[in-house]
């Protein structure tokens, strides 16, 4: 998971600054997405809630079916990217601003390591979840759910941040 975090940092480092789109006219020209195309817009808007719901399902049901933090993060990010493509990139940034994305990137990573360190503080080894609760199996499950949440948050944030870094770039 730290790999994707690193890549996110890298892309933001490379593209996050400098020639980001500036003037107002350009913004209106390029930021409208597919607003004037009725059918893709209606169909797309119908799909987005389901995509995000499916993402959440994959996140929280990952223990019972196929899925987990990374897949969920990718799916949710895909849903929000679809929104950005339909409504224009600026609208999407209004929904989830860049600052929030950065916070998600870092927050997920911090959550992951903190859970690991908690295992250490409670007398186990690093990433030992069995000590998180009296019942070792319960502890393992708690640990996995928390870690998966961390992974999901970071992946969603990073993939979206990467997408916006590309999309906001002036050609």
């Amino acid at each position, binding site marked *: 998971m730290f790999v994707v975090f690193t*890549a996110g940092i890298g892309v933001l480092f*490379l593209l996050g600054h400098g020639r980001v789109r500036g003037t107002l006219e350009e913004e209106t020209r390029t930021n409208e997405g597919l607003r004037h195309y009725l059918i893709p817009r209606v169909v797309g808007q119908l799909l987005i809630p389901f995509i995000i719901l499916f993402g959440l399902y994959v996140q929280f049901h990952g223990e019972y079916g196929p899925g987990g933090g990374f897949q969920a993060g990718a799916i949710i990010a895909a849903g929000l990217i679809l929104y950005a493509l339909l409504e224009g990139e600026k609208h999407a940034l209004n929904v989830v601003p860049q600052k929030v994305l950065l916070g998600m990137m870092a927050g997920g990573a911090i959550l992951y390591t903190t859970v690991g360190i908690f295992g250490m503080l409670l007398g186990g080894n690093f990433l030992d979840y069995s000590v998180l609760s009296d019942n070792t199996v319960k502890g393992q499950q708690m640990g996995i759910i928390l870690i998966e949440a961390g992974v999901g948050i970071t992946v969603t944030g990073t993939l979206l941040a990467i997408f916006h870094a*590309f999309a906001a770039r002036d050609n």
Partner: protein
Amino acid sequence: MDILGLFNYWVFAILLMIGFYAVLAKKNLIKKLIGLALFQSAVFLLYITVGKVKGGTAPIFSATAEGDVFSNPLPQVLILTAIVVGISVTALGLGIVVRIREEYGSIEEDEILEMDRQ
């Protein structure tokens, strides 16, 4: 059937080399990254093939799956991580390509080398 048993490995080899050829021979930077992505997916195929058991099912326990043979979960875990690595490399690579295009106005390797020589 003996030869067919190795079919997946052969596809792995061919796919690997198609990707590798693209990375080596193509001068377009985006094409190189596409080749790299193919190259990496070939490796995913190798690992997942390794974990497969004939007649097995996905390693998810459930009431109906009692007594089933499961395929090996470990390679799948590894490949999940490797897919993450793959997308990270692609994203960073594309970021660099975009910056190269901004600085040099080209994404062809030989043209860029030409400009640097001057």
